[in-house]
């Protein structure tokens, strides 16, 4: 039975101190920490003088200990050490991370010149390089509540071993591949990084894992999931039927999760045979607005707001309700997602592309008079539709060089003209249908 905690160190203290909490395979051999050892390391973690602290979350025992040690004592911003260098610099400045902990091989990374005032929030950036990226203010209590909500619907046993390969700098990775298993007393196997992801399942022999759709499909299709694996939680984007089928064909239970950074992760989870019929987590109340938008109320998990951005907060969080920008319907008490109201594309690896900003960057590169539109294909990659007869391959190459791999243009399709509405908006569905 799931237990409600309000602090990260309290969550550790609630488990059997002798039970294994973390395992990390290193070239020198496995390193293991029990719950008692992890709690002691967190309790004794040195607290820096700076108020805002950036932690490079490389899924190491050290980075996990730093987060558990400093939560509630400083304002934390969780950073992806493998992230784009420019994005990292921007995030550090915007979050006033005057102290940095951990390692990144990104060049020219240094702490922010200006520190923030006192605070205990934990900041997660919602997405990468687009102007829509915002620092979402959560805290220990909200994150623990999210773990409780997940554990209530989908409990793990203390004997379970969950392989954590998602970056802890993203809320789905932090809650669903770290806090959820720890709140259930299970063991977390810390993945060894991108280059080892194909071999981690064979090396750790986990019983559960949380994955993004692209990873799940790739690993299942190549037979890289181990025999002991009995549960895969898939989140951070819609999941193609082919991926679900590939994982289920291996006898693995698949649960599909829906949530936002702004809700500290999961709002609803699928528990039965139909992975798209999702049960709403116990703390949530959902309404479907007239235009189909999912509007969420929750006393325990909704963000405090966007860091230093009250205007953006006001747009989505009003009267205790969060306007998700996602479209859905409720049938027989189950939530079904039907689309996205916001022009944000979720890529196969869980990262997001804010389409208007993405197209503006392309327009600046392609020059005046360029007529094009970007469409996400069913396999999650991006296609660029351009009106003939412009030859733009070289410019797209240059553009792709500045994008992370999952966010690059994967296909260029030349068409006679870009279909638009009377007001000039691109009719993207006509482009997809024409393929």
């Amino acid at each position: 039975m799931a237990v409600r905690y309000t602090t990260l160190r309290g969550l550790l203290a609630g488990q059997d101190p002798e039970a294994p909490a973390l395992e990390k395979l290193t070239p020198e051999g496995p390193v293991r920490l029990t719950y008692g050892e992890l709690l002691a390391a967190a309790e004794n973690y040195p607290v820096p003088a700076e108020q805002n602290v950036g932690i490079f979350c490389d899924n190491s025992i050290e980075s996990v200990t730093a987060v558990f040690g400093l939560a509630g004592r400083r304002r934390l911003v969780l950073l992806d050490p493998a992230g784009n260098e420019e994005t990292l610099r921007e995030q550090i400045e915007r979050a006033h991370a005057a102290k940095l902990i951990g390692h990144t091989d990104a060049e020219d990374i240094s702490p922010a010149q200006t520190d923030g005032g006192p605070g205990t929030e934990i900041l997660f950036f919602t997405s990468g390089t687009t102007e829509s990226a915002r620092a979402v203010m959560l805290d220990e209590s909200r994150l623990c509540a999210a773990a409780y909500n997940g554990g209530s619907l989908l409990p793990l046993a203390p004997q379970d071993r969950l392989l954590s390969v998602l970056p802890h700098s993203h809320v789905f990775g932090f809650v669903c591949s770290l806090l959820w298993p720890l709140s259930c007393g299970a063991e977390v196997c810390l993945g060894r990084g991108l280059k080892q992801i194909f071999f981690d399942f064979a090396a750790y022999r986990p019983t559960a894992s949380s994955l993004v759709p692209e990873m799940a499909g790739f690993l299942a299709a190549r037979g890289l999931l181990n025999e002991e694996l009995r549960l895969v939680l898939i989140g951070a984007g819609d999941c193609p039927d082919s991926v679900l089928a590939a994982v289920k064909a291996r006898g693995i239970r698949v649960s599909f999760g829906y949530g936002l950074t702004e809700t500290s992760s999961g709002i609803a989870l699928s528990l039965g045979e139909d992975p798209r019929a999702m049960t709403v987590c116990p703390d949530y109340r959902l309404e479907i607005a007239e235009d189909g938008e999912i509007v969420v109320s929750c006393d325990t998990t909704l963000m405090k707001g966007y860091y230093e951005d009250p205007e953006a907060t006001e747009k989505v969080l009003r009267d205790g309700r969060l306007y998700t920008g996602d479209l859905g319907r409720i049938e027989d008490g189950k939530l079904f997602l039907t689309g996205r109201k916001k022009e944000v594309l979720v890529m196969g690896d869980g990262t997001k592309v804010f389409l208007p900003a993405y197209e503006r960057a392309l327009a600046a590169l392609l020059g005046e008079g360029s007529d094009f539109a970007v469409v996400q294909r069913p396999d999650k990659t991006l296609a660029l539709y351009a009106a003939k007869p412009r030859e733009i391959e070289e410019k797209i190459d240059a553009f792709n060089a500045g994008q992370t791999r999952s966010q690059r243009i994967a296909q260029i399709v030349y068409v006679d003209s870009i279909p638009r509405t009377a007001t000039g908006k691109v009719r993207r569905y006509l482009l997809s249908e024409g393929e």
Partner: protein
Amino acid sequence: MQREEIAAKVRELIRTHQPGFEDVDIQEDTRINTEAGFDSLTFVYIMCKIEAELGISIPHRRWEKMLTFGDVLDAIEKELAKKK
């Protein structure tokens, strides 16, 4: 190892480990994303196989900057040169 030998080895690894790419024509200027059609994980998987086969380790940040197979060969040549 000469560049042509490296290119032949890379082609062989791609054709061995990536179903559907047996007949793809892979040249120095073939673009990884737009022409070869590799998604992000496929690319990482193939690069891991190349590293293991050739006994090298290419910094991950360099992977992100690669656009064509020629870029991949450049990186491999550089790492093999370090081993000498």
